[in-house]
């Protein structure tokens, strides 16, 4: 096995573990931030300022009884959370965490894979991720779960389209589907008169960025698009019947996909590891944190959409906007190339 492949494997393991650890503390940070926004204290009993809370939660979920409903479709019921959980971190494979570094004399790339269809790969994994939710909803033999699964199917199909189309503008400008290439292009400096601006795609594609943000929230089933699990309507929706570590798989999957999509957004629109001083993975982390904060902020602030309003937003508002964005970007690109 050549060293390149080996280093990729090692890096993949590192990314996976960091993601899992981040995810655990993501729940802690979410609870703390929400508490601050809602005028309360948040977890503060387990460890100093509640820092051990995620571990306590994880332990609790692991040792809880694993209940399988009597009429459930047993095999699918067991499969669904695994499917969700396995697919969530896989998408992180294409995210570049920086340039290559030298470890023990080996050149190690700070990404798991640089494939030329990275953006499509990301979308493909995202579209597979919904299977866990749909199947979990179906297999629970519970009508709330079934409704949750149906909602998830319709919602993810609709917003997958929006998500994909919102990236087309960036792809037109960069001319590549590889995330490494997209990041490299963004690290150039744009000079407009006296202004020295980074060539981040958020500046050239602001509309696409906003639409991507909305679609990303919908894609991860977070408030205000958390219809598949709307706890005040569907009592948890697709995971109503899940308990113990199977529930925690769904839970982990949701948070991991949140982190991954934040990293992806930071990579595509905010220049990834590019920063004003000393480029590096910390810039990516900072940018992703902004997105994650945005997620939490939304959750504390806005009410939930209704099913028909959700669909209406996707098809009547976002789709036309994103198509207009593609058209405009195409024209500008052609004009820039001197083809018009």
């Amino acid at each position, binding site marked *: 096995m050549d060293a390149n492949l080996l280093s990729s494997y090692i890096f993949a393991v590192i990314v996976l573990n960091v993601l899992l650890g981040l995810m655990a503390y993501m729940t802690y940070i979410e609870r703390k931030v929400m508490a601050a926004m809602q005028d309360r204290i948040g977890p503060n009993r387990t460890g100093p300022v509640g820092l051990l809370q995620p571990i306590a939660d994880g332990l609790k979920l692991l040792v809880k009884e694993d209940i399988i409903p009597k009429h459930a479709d047993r095999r699918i019921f067991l499969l669904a959370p695994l499917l969700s959980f396995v697919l969530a971190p896989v998408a992180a494979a294409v995210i570049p965490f920086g340039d290559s570094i030298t470890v023990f004399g080996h050149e190690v790339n700070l990404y798991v894979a640089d494939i030329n269809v990275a953006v499509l790969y990301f979308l493909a994994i995202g579209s597979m991720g919904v299977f866990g939710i749909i199947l979990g909803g179906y297999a629970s033999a519970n*009508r709330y779960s079934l*409704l949750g699964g149906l909602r998830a199917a319709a919602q993810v199909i609709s917003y997958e389209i929006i998500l994909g189309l919102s990236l087309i503008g960036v792809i037109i400008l960069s001319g590549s589907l590889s995330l490494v290439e997209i990041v490299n292009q963004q690290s150039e400096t744009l000079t407009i008169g006296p202004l020295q601006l980074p060539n981040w795609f958020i500046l050239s594609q602001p509309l696409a960025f906003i639409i991507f943000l909305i679609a990303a929230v919908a894609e991860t089933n977070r*408030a205000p698009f958390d*219809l598949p699990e709307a706890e005040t309507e569907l009592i948890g929706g697709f995971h109503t019947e899940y308990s113990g570590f199977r529930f925690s798989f769904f839970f982990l999957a949701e948070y991991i996909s949140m982190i991954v999509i934040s990293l992806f957004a930071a990579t595509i629109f905010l220049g990834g590891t590019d920063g004003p001083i000393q480029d590096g993975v910390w810039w990516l982390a900072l940018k992703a944190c902004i997105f994650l904060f945005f997620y939490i902020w939304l959750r*504390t602030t*806005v*009410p939930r*959409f*209704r099913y028909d*309003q959700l669909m209406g937003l996707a098809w009547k508002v976002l789709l036309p906007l994103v198509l207009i964005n593609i058209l405009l970007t195409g024209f500008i690109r052609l004009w820039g190339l001197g083809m018009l």
Partner: protein
Amino acid sequence: MSLEITQGTPVEISEERALTDSRRQMVLNMGPQHPSTHGVMRVVLTLEGETIVDCDPVLGYLHRGVEKLGETHRYSQFVPWTDRTDYVAAPSNNLGYILAVEKLCGIEAPERATYWRMIMGELARLASHLVWLGTHALDIGALSMSLYCFRERELILDIFETFCGARLTTNMMEMGGFSRPIPEQLPGMVRDFCNVFPKMQAEYETLLSSNPIWLSRTRGVGVIEPEAAISYSLTGACLRGSGINYDVRKATPYLYYDRMEFEVPLGTRGDVYDRYLVRMEEMRQSISIIEQCMEQMPTDGPLALTESPYVIPEHDNVMKTAEDMQRHFIWVIKGFSPPKGEVYQAIEHSKGELGYYLVSDGTPIPYRVRLRTPDFVNLQSLPYMAQGAALADVVALIGTIDIVLGSVDR
């Protein structure tokens, strides 16, 4: 087993019908253990996709026979039971019952006590509206509202605690006024609250009224036409949201509401949003009423009609004079016997017209106690509003009726 509901439609039949119906209808049993039914209410929904075809509320999971209990307790012993009907606005329930008994006995509390009763009633309305707002917003998905609302409700509960020692089940009102002195710090607390609260309320409104998702979730949803509102016998914000000008405080003023200057907000469309606006405006009017009460209230004067045989004698005198001691003994052991007759007293409760109907046969125990609880009557409109609505709207509709299951099931 066949559960009869008000319209005489057995629940079992509707489930059977849905199962044999060829049109892919699904029966969804919402509750009694559901986070958004505000307690133990069960709603049997017949769905087609996400659209509601039929909606049957099933009540009685919290039935404790409060009315029957009233027929086995002496008049003054029933007051704590009224706390436990609508437990988010206990002082209002106490007030309605005490007013009914006072009407039966033909006595009236002194001026100062009446003003305090009004203040406590309006504070109870505010507390109840805050709980309503928080839970209603939470049902629709605005997570933080409930915490903000409960924060402000805490101030009101502190006032209740200072006044009577209890926070939730206050058992606050007494025959003929108040037998204990008003705590010194209480007027200051009420004034502070009146100063703080409008700012807080403005904050809530910026969070909700200008939020497009909140607007789209509440506007045009659950419309009750004025005719329907009247024929369903709705009261409170459900009626006024549809534009009917009926407020017990204005229509048949009790206490000193005829001395107050306040306005009754009326909606124009009768949807969830109008009821929200009406309740928000009612909160502002309540604050103004409390302020007027604090202004008009005499600083001195008796708090209770201690001379009346229906009222417990002053605590200080019980141990000093033989007469008061005897009266006290009889009042506590035997209770008082109002004259024969029947009486209906309605008050404007936070949820609508709360009526107490009492029949006295001249003994210390009432012959009949009947509660006209507003949310029980208002809940009738749920199937009317839910038909053709989306599944997600049901929680908004249950929220907009503002039910407390203790009061619905009694």
